[in-house]
């Protein structure tokens, strides 16, 4: 497809509807960030998504957009429940990959001298790395309970407290999960991976609140300058990958019967109201719940480890869940489209929900200030806490960006890092890192990612989410 790109203002670009596109494409970006976007295939992917049946509004891309497979990473698209589709590729392989931020009562100055020991302690107690398995081995019955109950299952087993649940998107349990639609393979892969971090860009990071942008919202989130926070980035592990793979193959094999052309087989999809579409959503909800239980357990072990390593009690540590958001998901949500309130299926692939103040789905504690949005940067720079803004409901189906977004392929990053010690470079900046995979640090080095500050600036200016606080890494464990 020949892509025409029109700049609308300082942070919006439009791909006008042409050829098989059913709606316009709309990209949130900046004059600087859009340069890299133009060099890869991601704009074509925005246009491809715009051809899918039942798409409403625009085919959207957040400022961290980069080339994915099928849908771009950073893509958001909403589909009509009657004539629209659901696409496993529009959610991604790591279903409910997401972030969870915890606050503590610790001050950075207190832990800086023991930072290396803390990272070592976390690295020993949190299972990380490819195919990592943890101390939990689920029976089939337990696994189906996890798939239905999500974070609540973990809380019932003593991982965390019931108060945590309201601080999780959808309270950590997605409705409609039905384990009877899962393959034996999915069940098998999920059995030993609950309570594991994974590999690649997944991490656990100890941080310090480095800057506050909005005092009122920061206070509501329990954030103050100099305070220690912990950010976890993980997902549904092999369980979610298998579910995506199973349904993608099933749908791909039937696309030749579809009454529309598919520009890319990876966009394979099913009508939302079809049996296949419903089964996928029921399976996807199982993976979403698995991921929420996973992050709930990882949080609990983090707390135990810090208590032990610092020889302090839970009260002194004061670890509290701030929020948990997912960034790979498809959800039935209520939105206004062309003046009418409708229920649509919003796909977020590398994008975060960002509900504005007053939204009925927000818990009472955040109702006045908006939903916390967690945006991790690369391991050498900052992460951000934002709050959902009014503009998100008007422009992006209540969505915003999810992270920095890659600019270098893993191969290019490894080449650029040749002869360098990324570990030492980070340590010189006061960031202690331990990783399982030999290549991980090079592949995930800071230069491989867009500048997260620029990404966040765009969503702030576009009124999708506003800046609340900036977090600086002190120590990281990676897979």
């Amino acid at each position: 497809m020949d892509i025409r790109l029109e700049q609308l203002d300082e942070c919006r670009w439009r791909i006008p509807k042409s050829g098989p596109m059913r709606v316009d494409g709309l990209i949130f970006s900046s004059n600087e960030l859009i340069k890299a976007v133009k060099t890869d295939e991601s704009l074509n992917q925005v246009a491809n998504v715009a051809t899918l049946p039942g798409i409403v509004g625009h085919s959207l891309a957040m400022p961290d957009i980069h080339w994915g497979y099928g849908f771009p990473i950073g893509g958001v698209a909403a589909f009509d429940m009657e004539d629209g589709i659901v696409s496993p590729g529009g959610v991604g392989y790591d279903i409910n990959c997401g972030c969870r931020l915890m606050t503590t009562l610790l001050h950075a100055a207190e832990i800086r001298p023991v930072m290396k020991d803390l990272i070592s302690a976390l690295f020993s107690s949190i299972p990380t790395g490819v195919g990592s398995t943890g101390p939990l081995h689920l029976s089939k019955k337990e696994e189906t309970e996890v798939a239905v109950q999500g974070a609540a299952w973990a809380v019932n087993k003593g991982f965390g407290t019931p108060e945590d649940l309201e601080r999780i998107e959808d309270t950590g349990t997605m409705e409609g999960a039905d384990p009877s639609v899962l393959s034996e393979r999915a069940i098998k892969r999920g059995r030993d991976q609950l309570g594991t971090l994974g590999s690649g860009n997944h991490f656990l990071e100890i941080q310090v609140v480095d800057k506050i942008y909005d005092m009122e919202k920061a206070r509501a989130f329990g954030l103050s300058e100099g305070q220690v926070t912990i950010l976890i980035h993980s997902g549904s592990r092999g369980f979610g990958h298998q579910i995506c793979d199973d349904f993608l193959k099933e749908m791909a094999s039937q696309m030749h019967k579809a009454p529309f052309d598919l520009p890319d087989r990876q966009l394979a999809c099913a009508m939302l109201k079809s049996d296949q579409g419903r089964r996928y959503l029921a399976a996807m909800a199982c993976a979403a719940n698995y991921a929420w239980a996973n992050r709930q357990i990882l949080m609990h072990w983090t707390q135990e480890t810090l208590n032990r390593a610092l020889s302090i009690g839970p009260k002194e540590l004061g670890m509290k869940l701030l929020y948990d958001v997912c960034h790979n998901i498809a959800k039935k949500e209520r939105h206004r489209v062309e003046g009418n309130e409708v229920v649509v299926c919003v796909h977020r692939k590398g994008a975060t929900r960002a509900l504005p103040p007053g939204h009925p789905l927000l818990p009472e504690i955040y109702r006045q200030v908006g939903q916390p949005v967690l945006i991790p940067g690369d391991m050498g720079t900052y992460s951000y806490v934002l709050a959902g803004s009014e503009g998100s409901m008007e422009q992006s189906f209540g969505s915003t960006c999810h992270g920095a977004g890659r600019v270098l392929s893993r191969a290019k990053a490894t080449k650029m890092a040749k002869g360098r010690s990324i570990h030492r470079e980070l340590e010189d900046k006061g960031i202690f890192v331990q990783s399982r995979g030999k290549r991980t640090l090079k592949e995930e080095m800071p230069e491989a990612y867009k500048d997260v500050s620029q990404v966040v600036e765009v969503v702030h200016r576009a009124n999708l989410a506003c800046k609340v606080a900036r977090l600086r890494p002190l120590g990281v464990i990676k897979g």
Partner: protein
Amino acid sequence: MNSHIPDFTLLDHTADLGILVRGSDLTNLFEAAAIALIRIMVGGEPSGNTESINISVEGQDLNDLMVRWLGEILYLFEGEERLITDVTIGFISASRLDALVATVPFDPARHEILCEIKAVTYHEIEVVKRGSRWEAKIIFDL
């Protein structure tokens, strides 16, 4: 039989990883793709008790067949924790293949994980004949 080094190159893709595999015929191409996938994921000399496994895969066309075939190899590793050491494709057509794969159990002490591949994608998948040789482009999700 395909224990020799497969003919493949890595492709650059911002978010993920791709390979370009070449083979003298379809059998050779599909065997090489399977071995290439394992070599990208795991380093070290595969050793341990060998178990042979029969795999049959059906697909809509050669592209679909390649994605499903490599998906089976990936599942053997991810789901069954077995590494393939050798592949013999006994039958292949545009819509079906039958193979016998020799596998050893994955042993973290002996085998070094180089790269986690989450899935074999349909994105830009291409299995084509160029001149007298066959070539396949496959993108993996990492």
